[in-house]
């Protein structure tokens, strides 16, 4: 399957924004060194890419399905990339997630002009058409933001934000308010999905929970926690917070809690890298408690009792 090129609207010709993609159809066991240099394009976000460049990229992608060869186009793209780094995902590639993506066709037909477009394309690649495409089924949030479909806990937040903006720039519903091509509703859906993907992946807690879900180890609502040490620490922290009278006291508790969050996030990164899902789950649960405390601290106002802290 192909990989992805996005372009900023105005600078399309000069500085294509590459979202390095691994080909989803490639050998699952391959460790993905997911930099743009190693990959040709997947999802074509850019009706704005000059057609000739697009053709070049598309054809190189189809010639080199596993996209491990160096191509001038890819080199150019990688050269324009900033410091963002992609982690080779340590998550086992034999997960259910990958199995589904492996069976995915490389192209879909544009709903309007029937041109075959890359499966993940946001817009029709036919320069005469360019309409926003319908949501592609079975796509995870990493792919939605143009990342490798294999979940990785370590994300470059700056890079993620940039990807998010670039995509929104292309398909923001405001640009389709006239609905001239009948694709306004698809722009809304794509935009909404992109929002969801971004907000899920940018927060360490929701990202952890999402990856656990993708890997088939979600935290169930009905689960009960019987870890006395953790619960005692949580209870104590909550009681201290409840008794705190001054901003300074709360600041101190915040410092302690920030350290907890930092340590837990680091632990999660290690756990996901070493494919230790049990440990990742334990830490995600811990993080849930620390984030809740963080929220209570954020909303703390002197003299106001803490009421139910979520609905």
């Amino acid at each position, binding site marked *: 399957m192909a990989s992805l090129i996005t372009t900023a609207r105005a600078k399309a010709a000069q500085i294509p924004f590459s979202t390095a993609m691994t080909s989803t159809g490639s050998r699952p066991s391959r460790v993905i060194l997911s930099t743009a240099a190693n990959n040709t394009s997947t999802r074509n976000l850019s009706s704005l890419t000059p057609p000739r460049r697009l053709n070049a990229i598309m054809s190189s992608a189809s010639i080199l399905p596993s996209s491990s060869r160096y191509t001038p186009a890819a080199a150019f793209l990688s050269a324009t990339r900033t410091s963002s780094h992609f982690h080779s995902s340590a998550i086992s590639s034999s997960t259910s997630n990958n199995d589904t993506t492996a069976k995915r066709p490389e192209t879909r037909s544009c709903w309007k002009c029937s041109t075959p477009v890359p499966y993940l394309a946001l817009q029709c690649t036919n320069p005469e058409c360019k309409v926003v495409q319908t949501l592609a089924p079975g796509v995870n949030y990493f792919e939605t933001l143009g990342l490798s479909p294999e979940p990785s806990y370590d994300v470059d937040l700056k890079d993620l934000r940039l990807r998010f903006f670039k995509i929104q720039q292309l398909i923001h519903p405001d640009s389709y308010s006239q609905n001239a091509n009948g694709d306004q509703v698809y722009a809304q859906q794509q935009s909404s999905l992109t929002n969801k993907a971004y907000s899920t992946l940018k927060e360490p807690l929701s990202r952890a929970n999402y990856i656990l879900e993708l890997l088939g180890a979600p*935290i*169930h*609502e*009905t*689960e*009960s*926690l*019987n*870890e*006395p040490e*953790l*619960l*005692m620490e*949580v*209870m104590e922290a*909550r*009681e201290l917070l409840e008794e705190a009278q001054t901003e300074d006291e709360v600041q101190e508790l915040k410092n302690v809690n920030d350290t907890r969050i930092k340590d837990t996030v680091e632990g999660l990164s290690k756990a996901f890298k070493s494919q230790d899902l049990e440990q990742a789950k334990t830490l995600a*649960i811990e993080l*849930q*408690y620390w*984030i*809740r405390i963080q929220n209570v601290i954020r909303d703390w106002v002197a003299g106001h009792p*803490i*009421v*139910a*802290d*979520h*609905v």
Partner: protein
Amino acid sequence: MLRTTIFNASRSLFAKPSAAIAVRSYHPKVIDHYERPRNVGSFNKADPFVGTGLVGAPACGDVMKLQIKVDEASGKIVDVKFKTFGCGSAIASSSYMTERVRGMTLEDAGSIKNTEIAKELCLPPVKLHCSMLAEDAIKSAINDYKRKRAAATASA
């Protein structure tokens, strides 16, 4: 007037408006327990006749502590305290549980099912896990008490 203001304030607290869909709010019974929680507080954990149950809900990050004081001669729960940091349903479930188990034998208290709590408080399906937490809490408190007593008898 004041009453209306408070009512409105509490409504805005509990109602979570979601886009175009109907507003979902807590049942009055939940709000009552939430606004006037029964038996909030703590006993000394080290007291040999106090059993402490500390449980958490990993999915939402709630934590609930429920403590029972037991009269050894009759084997009945003579006093109960709880402390819950969580949503309104979790607070209400534990508050209701403390009222429910007071005066009960350990066996009766341990056999209370979460469905009973959920029914009493009219919890919606998404909040059933809050009542499960309360069930886990009382069971955990009873076990803690039994463990303590067993240890005390063994060393005596």
